[in-house]
């Protein structure tokens, strides 16, 4: 029998109170993990990016397009290894008209050089290159819309009138989180043909890979400088900065979620601290006896801290035990399937779990400081008199 043992036994004294306190910690940990998972899911794409990929678009607004000549000029720059161009199509499947996904007109010849993290079986790649009406569809989108390889689909566009018929000849798997696994790619030529003469031969944006040894940041600047003197200026960002700029637009919400997750932990600490303080107050007599017998003030502190750590640990463990199946098996699946556009990945990462557990115990210990101090400062003589 030892200090931790005594602490554990003290917790079992008032089972209801210990149960409620552990529940409080559990709820706190659960909420914290959930919120952090939401934040993680939101920002996941911006973390797993290709360090040498650059996106170049019209400087003023992404709605405006670049002339084709820009592509040729970028491609011939010495810092650039390879490049491709794309246009936004804004496609919708009329039979699933609530589903949002990206439809992109691309240069099929150069797409895979720049996006070597879009894994496609060689025969499908070949079919995509050959079929003028071919479509390359992301794996996740195939699942979401129930499409099959070889199927012909008719899409409509938010920008361009009419019906657009595509043959699904290829399915790609995204090897990096920054690559959206639910897109539709088709031949740019097909789009260009049907565009009015006024806007023919204009591209939406250019994606390039920098040459080995060159830095993405410097190359971005070099590209923008090159076009600065011309009529149509560009804004180039490496993939990470590009994703981050999307997140910046949500910064208010992300900050709010961040703050809330910390506040929840704070509440947890309040509940825990309150429970510990109650325990100390009730056991003053026992502490006095232990001190009389010869235990030192630091032993009393150890008792309180051990209780706190135990509560934190159990609460954290239960919280994680609930969080993992709840999020990874239940909620996460649902969100990935139905809100896959916003949250293609929604699961508890091991690091989030470790952080949650560590915080749970650490904060429990912090919360125990005021009652532990009270136990430390106990004046034996007064305490004995009070009880007797």
């Amino acid at each position, binding site marked *: *029998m*030892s200090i931790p043992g*005594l602490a554990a*036994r*003290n917790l*079992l*004294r008032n089972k209801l109170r210990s149960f409620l306190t552990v529940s409080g910690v559990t709820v706190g940990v659960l909420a914290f993990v959930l919120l952090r998972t939401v934040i993680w899911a939101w920002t996941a794409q911006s973390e797993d990016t290709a360090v040498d990929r650059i996106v170049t678009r019209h400087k003023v607004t992404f709605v405006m397009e670049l002339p084709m000549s820009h592509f040729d000029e970028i491609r011939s720059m010495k810092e650039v290894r390879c490049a491709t161009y794309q246009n936004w199509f804004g496609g919708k499947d009329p039979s699933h008209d609530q589903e949002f996904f990206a439809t992109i007109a691309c240069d099929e010849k150069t797409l895979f050089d720049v996006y070597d993290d879009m894994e496609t079986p060689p025969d499908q790649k070949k079919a995509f290159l050959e079929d003028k009406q071919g479509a390359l569809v992301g794996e996740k989108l195939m699942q979401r819309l129930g499409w099959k390889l070889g199927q012909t689909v008719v899409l409509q566009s938010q920008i361009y009138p009419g019906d657009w018929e595509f043959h699904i000849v290829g399915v790609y798997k995204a090897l990096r989180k920054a690559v959206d696994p639910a897109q539709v790619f088709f031949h740019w030529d097909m789009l260009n043909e049907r565009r009015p003469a006024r806007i023919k031969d204009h591209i939406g944006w250019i994606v390039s890979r920098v040459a080995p040894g060159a830095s993405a940041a410097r190359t971005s600047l070099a590209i923008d400088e090159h076009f600065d003197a011309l009529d149509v200026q560009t804004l180039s960002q490496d993939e990470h900065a590009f994703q981050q700029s999307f997140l910046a637009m949500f910064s208010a919400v992300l900050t709010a979620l961040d703050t809330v997750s910390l506040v929840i932990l704070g509440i947890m600490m309040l509940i825990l601290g309150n429970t510990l303080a109650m325990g100390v107050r009730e056991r003053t*007599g*026992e502490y*006095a*006896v*232990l*001190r*009389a*017998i*010869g*235990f*030192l*003030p630091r032993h009393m502190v150890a008792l309180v801290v051990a209780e706190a750590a135990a509560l934190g640990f159990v609460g954290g463990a239960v919280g994680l035990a609930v969080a993992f199946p709840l999020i990874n098996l239940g909620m996460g699946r649902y969100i990935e399937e139905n809100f896959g556009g916003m949250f293609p990945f929604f699961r508890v990462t091991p690091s989030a779990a470790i952080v949650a557990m560590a915080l749970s115990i650490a904060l429990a210990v912090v919360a125990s400081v005021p009652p532990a101090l009270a136990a430390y400062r106990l004046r*034996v*003589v007064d305490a*004995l*008199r009070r*009880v*007797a």
Partner: protein
Amino acid sequence: MSEISAASPLRGAAPSPETTPPIIRLKGLKKTFWRGKEAVHVLDGLNLDVPEGSFEALMGPSGSGKTTLLNLCAGLDQPTEGTVEVAGQTISGLSETLLARWRASTIGFVFQSFHLLPVLTAEQNVELPLILAGLSRAERKRRAVIALRAVGLEDRARHLPRQLSGGQEQRVAIARAIVNDPKLIIADEPTGDLDRQSADDVLTLLVRLNRDFGKTVMMVTHDPAAAERAGIIRRLDKGSLL
């Protein structure tokens, strides 16, 4: 007049101060408490020698300072002035930490409200002082059992306090008080919460420890029947021995 004669085995010992060396020496003991700005002199220059092996009862009205005196002898409190010497060691002026260590090896405590830890069994409660002594588990268990046997509760070793009667709880407390083989047993109203029969059993136990094992006992009590079982009765009033 006491009903029990001085020499009776039912009473504690009262060794003569001339022939027996003192185990406690109090010299010029003063203790002042502060109530706001007002100073309360609970003890005002008290001198006392307690012979080893004595069974002393301290009596007096509320506020007479008897509990304060007890606390000073036990090393639970420090005097404002004066010295406290117990078993040849001056304990007044020692640091908290040293006093704690000293108490663990020298004193056995018995309180009015038993103060057994309710979450531990009788045996585990008795063991507590031995944890401080750093003894092995096996050794602690052995000595705890011996102590419980001495108070006649060996068969209740595994019981929790709530499963024991008031008298039994107090006897377990006494077992805890003797398990570290202390020089001095300090008892603060040991029979205060007990019925007549249990009180009697507890006092008999204390007398036995005093007579048969030579333990010095200092007891504060209100109870005349308890005082009668002591070897020496000292009365305090307003901080002075009468």
